[in-house]
């Protein structure tokens, strides 16, 4: 029989989306002086809210508010007190988790299953983890009394809006810095809800400031002379610009940039779990993941079998309404991103790779792209080199472990990699040779506040998470 799952939508009524949002500066929502912009629901293209755009003056105000809070309140505050604020925030995130998850899915397009089970729990965990560091910094290995840097300008991407906010704000605040954070243009809503959480937690005004806008706002923030530290997650191109603009200043930088991760499947892998890991590696969050396993490297002896299983599995992926609790793959975040994915996928076909997607009906409105795998891909193809940032997998084959490692490392990126084999020594041999900051062996796309994350080479520098994640916010 055919077992059809009836629609199981999470109710959007839990979220009260206001018609317009201002900037969060000095503990208050204030007007922006740029031309406001709209945030749309990528699943149906409806306008969710009008968002203030911060111009240079607004950024200046936010940095000044952060500076004042740093000098008068947050910097001098004992770590144990800062810790309690962060614990409070962690608890409020847990209490408002449903609201945050729904809002994230509406604004970003990601399935509610992921925002509910992955993003938001990790956000709470991140604040909880770094809260505990705030009064223990002298034990972190950066000297007996490491000092904060001051004001951190933080620019985050649209793929994990709230989670990236947590990755930025939690360690910064734990170390005694204050922040001005700019969420991505297409996904500002959960950051603005987070501002409300800061108020509920009675966080002193100016410790967290949120400025919304596009690239110009980000540039104004990154280049602001009153910013002591710039933390950026996003594309390698923008990361380069930020690194350039910081040249000749005393600003400290943490950059978490693009990736083109190899997911290596050896012939002795636990194949069903490998297939699951491959699927999770590239279709998690519609492939909008910098560490996505976008290059599948399969040992030739099992390539055919693996591909067959992969296709079968892909055919069970449920693409559609992000708020449906049974959706596996949601909407592409924006029209611009969809255009880029299409352009690269077309290039893949034009370059001779074979394209396959399971039969799947895409909603008529919104931005959608069916899960896609390319076979017959060569290292020289654009789809094997460029970050697609979408649900598009490129499958290549290899014959020997050496060849796998060589191909895996043959990229200017170095963020993550996957290894699938049942042989322990081969895992360690391979992990040691992969030039990537995160190596998942017999698993993929796992994140934890205790686990450092960050790239080699052009995937950026600095680590977020764990003890290592403190370093970027301390004058060590």
């Amino acid at each position: 029989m055919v077992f059809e799952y009836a629609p199981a939508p999470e109710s959007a009524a839990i979220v009260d989306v206001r018609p317009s949002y201002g900037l969060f500066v000095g503990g208050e929502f204030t007007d922006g002086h740029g031309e406001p912009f709209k945030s749309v629901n990528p699943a149906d293209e409806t306008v969710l809210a009008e968002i203030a755009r911060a111009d240079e003056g607004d950024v200046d105000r936010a940095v000044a508010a952060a500076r004042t809070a740093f000098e008068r309140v947050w910097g001098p505050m004992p770590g144990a007190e800062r810790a309690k604020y962060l614990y409070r925030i962690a608890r409020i995130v847990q209490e408002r988790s449903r609201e945050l998850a729904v809002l994230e899915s509406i604004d970003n397009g990601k399935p509610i299953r992921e925002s509910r089970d992955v993003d938001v729990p990790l956000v709470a965990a991140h604040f909880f983890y770094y809260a505990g560091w705030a009064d223990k910094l002298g034990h972190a290995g950066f000297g007996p009394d490491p000092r904060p840097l001051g004001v951190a300008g933080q620019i985050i991407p649209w793929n994990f809006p709230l989670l990236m906010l947590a990755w930025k704000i939690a360690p910064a605040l734990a170390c005694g810095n204050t922040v001005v954070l700019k969420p991505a243009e297409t996904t500002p809503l959960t950051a603005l809800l987070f501002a409300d959480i800061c108020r509920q937690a009675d966080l002193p005004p100016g410790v967290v400031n949120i400025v919304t806008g596009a690239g110009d706002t980000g540039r104004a923030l990154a280049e602001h002379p009153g910013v002591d530290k710039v933390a950026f997650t996003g594309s390698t191109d923008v990361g380069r610009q930020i690194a350039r603009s910081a040249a000749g200043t005393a600003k400290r930088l943490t950059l978490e940039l693009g990736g083109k991760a190899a997911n290596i499947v050896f012939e002795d892998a636990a194949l069903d779990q490998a297939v699951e890991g491959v699927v999770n590696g590239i279709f998690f969050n519609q492939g909008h993941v910098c560490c996505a396993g976008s290059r599948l490297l399969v040992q030739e002896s099992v390539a055919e079998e693996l591909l067959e299983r992969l296709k079968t599995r892909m055919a069970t992926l449920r693409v559609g309404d992000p708020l449906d609790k049974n959706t596996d793959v949601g909407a592409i975040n924006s029209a611009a991103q969809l255009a880029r994915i299409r352009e690269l996928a077309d290039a893949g076909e034009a370059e001779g790779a074979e394209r396959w997607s399971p039969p799947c009906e895409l909603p008529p409105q919104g931005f959608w792209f069916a899960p896609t795998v390319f076979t017959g891909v060569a290292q020289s193809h654009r789809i094997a080199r460029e970050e697609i940032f979408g649900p598009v997998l490129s499958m290549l084959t290899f014959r020997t472990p050496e060849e796998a490692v060589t191909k895996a490392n043959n990229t200017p990126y170095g963020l993550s990699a996957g290894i699938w084999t049942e042989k322990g020594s081969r895992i360690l041999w391979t992990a040691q040779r992969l030039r990537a900051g995160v190596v998942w062996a017999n698993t993929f796309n796992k994140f934890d506040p205790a686990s450092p994350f960050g790239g080699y080479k052009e995937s950026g520098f600095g680590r977020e998470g764990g003890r290592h994640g403190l370093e970027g916010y301390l004058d060590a």
Partner: protein
Amino acid sequence: MPVADFGDAGVVSTETLNGVAELRAFLRGLPGVDEVGASERAARLATRSIKTSAKAEAIDLAISMVDLTTLEGADTAGKVRALCAKAAHPDPADASVPRVAAVCVYPDMVDVAVRALDGTGIGVASVATAFPSGRAPLAAKLADTRAAVEAGAAEIDMVIDRGAFLSGDLGKVFDEIAAVKDACGAAHLKVILETGELATLDNVRRASWLAMRAGADFIKTSTGKVAPAATLPVTLVMLEAVRDHRAATGRQVGVKPAGGIRTTKDAVKYLVLVNETAGPDWLSPEWFRLGASSVLNDLLMQRRKLATGAYPGPDYFTLD
């Protein structure tokens, strides 16, 4: 009993192996199972939200897959007859409720059950082969099986020799299954792996293939007498095995999780697992069973809730 001649291993087998060494090599050559990954996959499928019309459909399907079971030392003819009555009319107040798939009893109760179920179309399944431990001479196991079949059992639920399996005597396990299959005649053979004693999912996969190659019509997780009984990860691995086995040989084998399935929610999780692992071809009582008894009343209660909108109480459903 001679060492297995795999070429003769039941008419249904497409076995081409020639000896125990090759059997062992074959089973060891199966892809491994990563326990954490398999558990994650099962847990994720368990988060599927089955509501409204899908839930109604799932409840009826689950009821129709139940092997209503009583396997107690204290079983009596009265107890078995009561169970049979329940099997035929799970909810006396609602004739639209489907009947269950089978009634599962000890061999000495088969004739009671067969008579009680006469005309209902419900088959009688009998455990056999010195259930649940399987610790008896093969001759006794075969006699047990024949007695049940002669008494009218349409299905035999045998247990494998876990001791032999764990000690590496795979030929013994294979031979016993083949011999019991032979003794079953026309009766369907369900092979209980007792996964709670096999300890690892690698063993579950190997035992699944071993049973299928030896002629099993169904592979079943547990006797219900050993904890843990059926679990989602174990069933996931078995569903993968039957899927792969059909792809390799063309022969479809059924799956039966048994023990520990108590709520509608549990039952629906198993159906989702079937749907998204082995596929819709297994979504019928012919290919998937739920070995349980207490789950039936919960299914009935949920069914009533969907129909009336009000939560019913346990007093409105029969305890047999």
